[in-house]
């Protein structure tokens, strides 16, 4: 069986989560590899969440928020926009590939866009292969 990546996705309640719901109500199918965790705003996504998901075996982490300028909390997504580039730089130092963490803007009306993003990310992660983090840490615990 081919490798099926597990993607943990943090979606903001107002835009992206609604967008994902819209994909559902519009019956826009996408890959079942994503697991959504709802947060009120993408700015609630503590870098720790991303790191924790990776450490616990996620092959990818998808963070989605409202489009810049459209944040329900007026500028929460800008905070996310500042956070994610530095987080990605940091993850690169830990040997985690760029493609594993992705920040996208998905509005409440972009159900199809959400589906496209999930499909695209799934494909990319399939090509990239499984994340080594969880197995490496499990290995470290027993094998010095």
């Amino acid at each position: 069986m081919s490798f099926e990546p597990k993607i943990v996705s943090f979606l903001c309640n107002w835009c992206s989560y609604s967008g994902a719901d819209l994909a559902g109500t519009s019956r826009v199918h996408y890959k079942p590899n994503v697991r959504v965790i709802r947060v009120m705003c993408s700015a609630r996504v503590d870098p720790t969440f991303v790191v924790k998901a990776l450490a616990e075996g996620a092959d990818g982490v998808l963070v989605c928020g409202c489009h810049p300028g459209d944040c329900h909390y007026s500028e929460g997504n800008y905070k996310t926009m500042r956070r994610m580039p530095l987080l990605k730089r940091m993850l690169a130092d830990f040997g985690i590939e760029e493609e594993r963490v992705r920040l996208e803007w998905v509005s409440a009306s972009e159900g199809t866009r959400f589906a496209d993003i999930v499909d695209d990310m799934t494909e990319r992660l399939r090509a990239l292969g499984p994340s080594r983090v969880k197995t490496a840490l499990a290995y470290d615990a027993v094998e010095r």
Partner: protein
Amino acid sequence: MTERRIGVYVCNCGTNIANVVDCDAVAEAAQSLPGVAVSRSYKYMCSNPGQEMIVQDIREEGLDRVVVAACSPRMHEPTFRRAAEMAGLNPYLVQMANIREQCSWVHDPGETATDKAKDLVRAAVYRAACHEPLERMAVEMCPDTLVIGGGIAGMSAALELADAGNRVYLVERTASLGGNVARVDLTAPYLDSARDMIVDRVTRVVEHPNVDVLLESELERLDGFVGNFKATLVRRSSGEAPPRQVVDVGSVVVCTGYKEFDAARVTHFGYGKLPDVITSFEFEQMLKQGRIELKDGRLPQYVAIVHCVGSRSEEFHGYCSRVCCMTALKYAHEVKSALPKAYVSDVYVDMHAFGKGCEDFYRRSAEVKTLFLMYGKGERPVVRRADPGDDCEMLLTVDEQLSGELIELPADLIILMVGMEPRDDAGQVAHLVNISQDKDGWFIESHPKLDPVATTTDGVYIAGACQSPKDIPDSVAQARAAAARILGKISRGKLEIDAMYAEVDEDLCSGCRVCNEICPYSAIEFDEEKRRSHVISALCKACGACVATCPSAAIKARHFTDAQIFAEITGVLA
């Protein structure tokens, strides 16, 4: 931690979920999760028997947490919270797993979808174990209301509220009330006079003891929260130091309307170059003056009305502006009645005649021998000057869809039915009152079908064409609906506001002040004396930005705590 007693309920949603996800298997898998006391699969959890099942289990099985795997929490979370409350369980001890919108409706039936549902339920169970009972806050409801915009919607909302005995501040940017409706002659489809309609409203508003009309004024700032807003209003007309006043209001109704599409953006109709190509609003002006004539004073023999100018095109606005079709028919009637010998052509893409009385109006327009010509969506009818020998001023070339012929239509007067678009400052208004705009710039309602007047900001309502293109009856209906919602709140006197907000553990706060700048609502205050920050909970909208930022983990997002989200992460990945 004492052992939890969690109830898990997997909804089949008829066949909506069960056709794709093996609900029984999901319920069975949940049974073995830590702390799960009861796990059931049921046809419709949101039905009365479904809710009753939860209530009964809470009472009889002593459940202390409830997980419902069903539709989106945006759909039925309030339903299940109410059910828990009925059984005496704190509503915040309910967690939903979205296995319909984000699982069964988007995946193919089979094991993969079922596995995903199991993961989502596990995450919800782990999360629910970390839930804490929360209490909602009760706040006063200020009965005064701010209405922004003095058009037909704003005046209707204001009157409805004021008639019920409440103070209304009606802020209008221009020097007069009436808005766009005041620019119109007759209205479709009954050909009533817009002037009569407006004059009556304006008089009532102006004379109403409960309405403060503030002309040439704008909202400059809105602070506070539902029931307790502070609105800073500024009068723009008077010179350098515009007078400001701050008023306390409990609710805000945004009725800022629309602006017409600028016909000069479309070049192929020759607007601005050919004298007798005019917009619908310029034609209204002509109608109000009582004489339909060309620029040189002659009477037109051929009148062409072009629909969808700026609307329903990929180039400008993709949406339908809704009122233009019937307005165009109205013009056909008005031209025919003023100039019985004139030939009226109506050049349209589709004829949208969906309102009450509109189909009949369309039929009657055909009966007065209006020539209807259909052009293709995305096509561009082109206007050119007629040749000297022609008996008309201009020729409109149309690739006519119903005949398949490319035709030239004679015209002396061309009326462009310009669409509606959001006002230029809609973005600023949205920012001021903290509501959202859709991709076209219209304000977004709370729910497109079930809650079309409220917004995502509690206490802020939208009515009229600022939400989307709308005709007069729809605008008035929405305005009065908004007023009804507000009156409902006023009558209860007190408001319960959501228990979700951030709070600072002052024992952990170091006073570093990193969070201070983060809050878009200035809800975080720094106490210089204690050298600690704290959150003014009533101002907090629970976005959680400060929580993620606090390097001391001293701020807790109630109902979205680190522990709860960690549990969810662990849950989906376990």
